[in-house]
Structures are given as C-alpha cells and as structure tokens.
C-alpha cells in the first residue's frame, strides 16, 4: 500500500481585511484554514490584547472581522420546505427579516454544524455557517436539498462580515447609518444604508453574549477596508478596540455559546449538547429527527455542564474529568480563564449523575487533580436594561 503525502503547507485563506489586520499589528493564527487575527496587542486605537478586547466588548464596544464565516443562500418555490428538511429549528415561524439559531444534523442526530437561519424574503433564506466547515456544509446542504424545487448557492465569498459588539455597539453604528437601529429586535435584521452603502444587511446578532450587530458588506478589499476603518473611527469616542478570535472565544465561552468541534460535533447529539430548545420535533420531518426521538425515550449518557475551578488551575480543552476516586468520567470541551468573571471556567461532558449544580469533580491538569464545581450556566448573562 502506498501512502499519500498530503501537502502540509496548504495556502491559508484570507479575508479582504487581512492586510489591515497585519498593518494593525495583529497576531495571526491558522483558524480552520483561515489566516485570522487572534489579538491586536498594539493597535493604533490603543493597547489591546485578548483581555482588554474582551472587556471592551463587555463594557463598551469591540469590532471583529468575521468574514471567514460562510453563507449559503437558498431560494426558490420550495425554499422553506428545503430549509425545514435540513435544519432542526422551525423556519416556518420566521417572518421576513427574522433570524434564529438552528443546526444541520446527520441522520444520527449529531451535528454537521450549527447555523443562523435568516429569512430574507418570501422564499429566500440565508444560512450563516462556520468557517472551518464551509465546504462540508455546502456539500451537505446541496446534496440534501436535491429533492426540492430550490437553489442552494455558496455566497460566502461575496461578503465581508463585520461584528460590532457590546453595550455601545448601537451608539457606534448609529453614527454610520440612517436606519433606526433601536427598532431592530434581537435576532432580527433589516437592509439599510451603512457607510453610504445601500441595501446593507444589518442583523442584531453576535457571538459574544452582548448586544450588537453584524453587517454584511461587499467583499472587495477597498470597500471592506473603508467600512472597517470608518467603524473603528466612529468608535473612538467609545474607546472601541479591534478584537481577535481570542476574545471572541472567551466571550462566547462565558456566555456558553457552542463552538463546532468542541461542544458540538459529528459525534455529539443535540440532546447531549443541551440544545433541544432549538430543535422542533412538532414540525415536519427533518434529517436527524427520528434518531433524536428514539434517543429522547432513552437516557442520555453524558450532558454538557459548566465548571468553575475551586483549586488553582485552568481546565482546558481536552483535559480529562475524573470522579472522586480518580476514574475518568468525561472531558473538557472548552476551558479558559474568564477575563470578565475573573475565574477559571470550563464546559465539560459528564454523566448525568455528576451534573447537579454544586457537584464536585476533578479535572486532571498536567497529572494533578484540580477540584472543580458544577455551576449554573451561562456563566455570564448580560445585565437587563434599566
């Protein structure tokens, strides 16, 4: 048998803002095949770094290039039926201009990916998907909508997607648009003029646990750079910072938002991940439904819990979870120092018997047992408006 040698230096993909990130002194990393900023230690807007970027989003506003996310548009007479078939949430409930969290599932009830479904028009939907799974997702969607009178297009390269996140996001973006942003409810969107660009998709969505917006502008480098720079300039009075994937990860972890390959994957089911509230069994059939209905009748073997370190030590992705006797009972899916909460936190899969709030488990950190407690999640909830 001969071995195929795979190219190890496959070219990383770049967003239209790549040169700007580098100019701004960002530290770049390979994220799912994309050359992306992880943090901006010394941006022209002031000293940043993961911790400051995280706090800017919690207390003020931060701006992220999330153009690596993919986009699939589904249009045609049977677009709704197709979306209903391939995703677990009930898209028939979406009004035009509304979006919701959902997922594409395998027949076993495990995840192809988690997605945001936007209803753009009467028979037009936009699925926003993860960067690392773009090709896989598109192929899967294309194959699974074949029986429907609709068209699925990969339009991920058409947009530069910029996320403006934090309590001051609305004040920042208001300076750049004539749209009444306050009229857009959470998980709704409209089309309006931003930075002089007509018909720009403005969605009140994000991945930080804060209020905020995501805007979709043409992906040519010139337009992308102009918008990015205008957004940062408009944010100066709010001490805006450009934010990298490092802060994006700790922000979503504090807010217990799933990350593909960690809390959800092709071996983890919807029920295990605790995402059943987005899975609508009462709607028409969808891929994965039958398996999930069967699993519902049985007991799940593991559930996702939030952990907080009691002893000194940071539980991290992949670390083993042990019971009091030292037997392995689960593993950490994501773990980190939490910059806003100033605690060491983690999400982990453990058997239901260990999932009660207040239960203690050990996480093995470099051969040492570090005591952790099961705590309520999300770890962080944004304060309610007064």
């Amino acid at each position, binding site marked *: 048998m001969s071995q195929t040698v795979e190219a190890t230096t496959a070219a990383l993909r770049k967003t239209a803002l790549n040169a700007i990130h580098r100019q701004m002194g960002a*530290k770049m990393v390979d994220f799912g095949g994309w050359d992306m900023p*992880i*943090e901006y*230690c010394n941006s022209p807007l002031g000293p940043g*770094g*993961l*911790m400051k970027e995280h706090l800017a989003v919690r207390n003020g506003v931060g701006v992220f290039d999330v153009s690596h996310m993919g986009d699939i548009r589904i249009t045609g007479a049977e677009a709704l039926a197709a979306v209903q078939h391939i995703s677990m949430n009930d898209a028939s409930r979406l009004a035009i201009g509304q979006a919701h969290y959902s997922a594409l599932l395998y027949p076993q009830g495990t995840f192809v990916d988690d997605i945001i479904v936007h209803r753009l028009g009467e028979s037009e939907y936009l699925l926003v998907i993860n960067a690392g799974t773009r090709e896989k997702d598109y192929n899967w969607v294309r194959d699974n909508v074949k029986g429907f009178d609709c068209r699925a297009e990969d339009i991920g390269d058409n947009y530069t997607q910029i996320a403006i996140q934090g309590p001051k996001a609305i004040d920042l973006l208001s300076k750049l648009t004539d749209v009444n942003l306050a009229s857009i409810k959470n998980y709704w969107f409209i089309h309006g003029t931003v930075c002089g660009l007509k018909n720009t998709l403005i969605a009140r969505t994000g991945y930080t646990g804060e209020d905020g917006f995501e805007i979709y502008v043409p992906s040519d480098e010139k337009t992308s750079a102009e918008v990015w720079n205008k957004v940062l300039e408009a944010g100066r009075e709010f001490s805006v910072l450009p934010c990298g994937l*490092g802060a994006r*990860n*700790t922000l979503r972890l504090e807010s217990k938002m799933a990350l593909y390959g960690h809390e959800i994957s092709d071996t983890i089911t919807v029920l295990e991940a605790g995402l059943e509230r987005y899975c609508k069994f009462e709607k028409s059939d969808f891929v994965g439904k039958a398996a999930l209905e069967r699993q519902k009748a049985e007991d799940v073997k593991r559930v996702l819990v939030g952990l907080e370190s009691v002893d*000194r*030590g*940071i539980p*991290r992705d992949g670390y083993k979870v042990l019971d009091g006797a030292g037997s392995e009972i689960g593993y950490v899916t994501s773990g*980190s*120092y939490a*910059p806003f909460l100033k605690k060491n936190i983690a999400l982990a899969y453990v058997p239901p018997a260990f999932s009660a709030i207040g239960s203690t488990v050990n996480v093995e950190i*470099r051969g040492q047992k570090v005591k952790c407690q099961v705590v309520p999640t999300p770890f962080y909830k944004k304060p309610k408006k007064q």
Partner: protein
Amino acid sequence: MGYPNELKYTREHEWVKADGKTATVGITNYAQEQLGDIVFVELPKVGAEVSKGTSFGTVESVKSVSEIFAPVTGKVAAINEALATAPEKINNDAHGSWMIRIEVKDPAELNGLLSAADYEKFIAEEQGK
C-alpha cells in the same frame, strides 16, 4: 524593549542573571509578547532539583500553556511568590519579574547561554520564519 547586557538568555526564551553560584531566572519580553495576557504561573517548591533543559514550571496566558525550562542544573533556592496572585507582573516587566533562583551545580553551564546580542539575533530569525 531592549535586552539588558547583564542578563544571559536561552533559545527557549528564559533570561538568566548569574550572581556567583546563584542564577535568577525569568522569561523574556519576547516570550511574554508571544504568550499574551498571563493569568497563571506554576513554580516548583523551594528545594526541588531542576535540570538543564527540562521543564520546571508552566506559565499560562488566557489562550495557551507554555512550559518553562531550566537554563542550568541545580536546586531551587527561592521562588517569586508574588507571581501566584499577580502573574500580570510578567507582562508589565518581564525582565524585572523573576520566577526562581537556582543554586547552580556547575557554574560552567552559565557560559553556554546566549548574550543579549545573540538572543536578539535569534528572535529576529524566529519572527522571520
């Protein structure tokens, strides 16, 4: 930030200040820049034996874990306790934030360390990769 001439350096990005048979060890400014915000430092106990080129502790930033390697062989004479509660001192002043003091077994080992000029050349190459 410059690399003081009175310090010696390793290719694993530790700095060493030699004073007779005592070597004071920390991580370099380049190392702290690479790590980002440091939130946790784990050091050996006083009296522990450390050996040249092997890990004696860990330093964790928000996003990563790195081992710290002993530049010389010897016994741990002191550790900087202040780093347990204020690890960010390393970000603020890497060359002023020592981690451990080693009672050096063989002072000749100190001669094998890099000078400031050689270390700066080394990190320029690292960054060029």
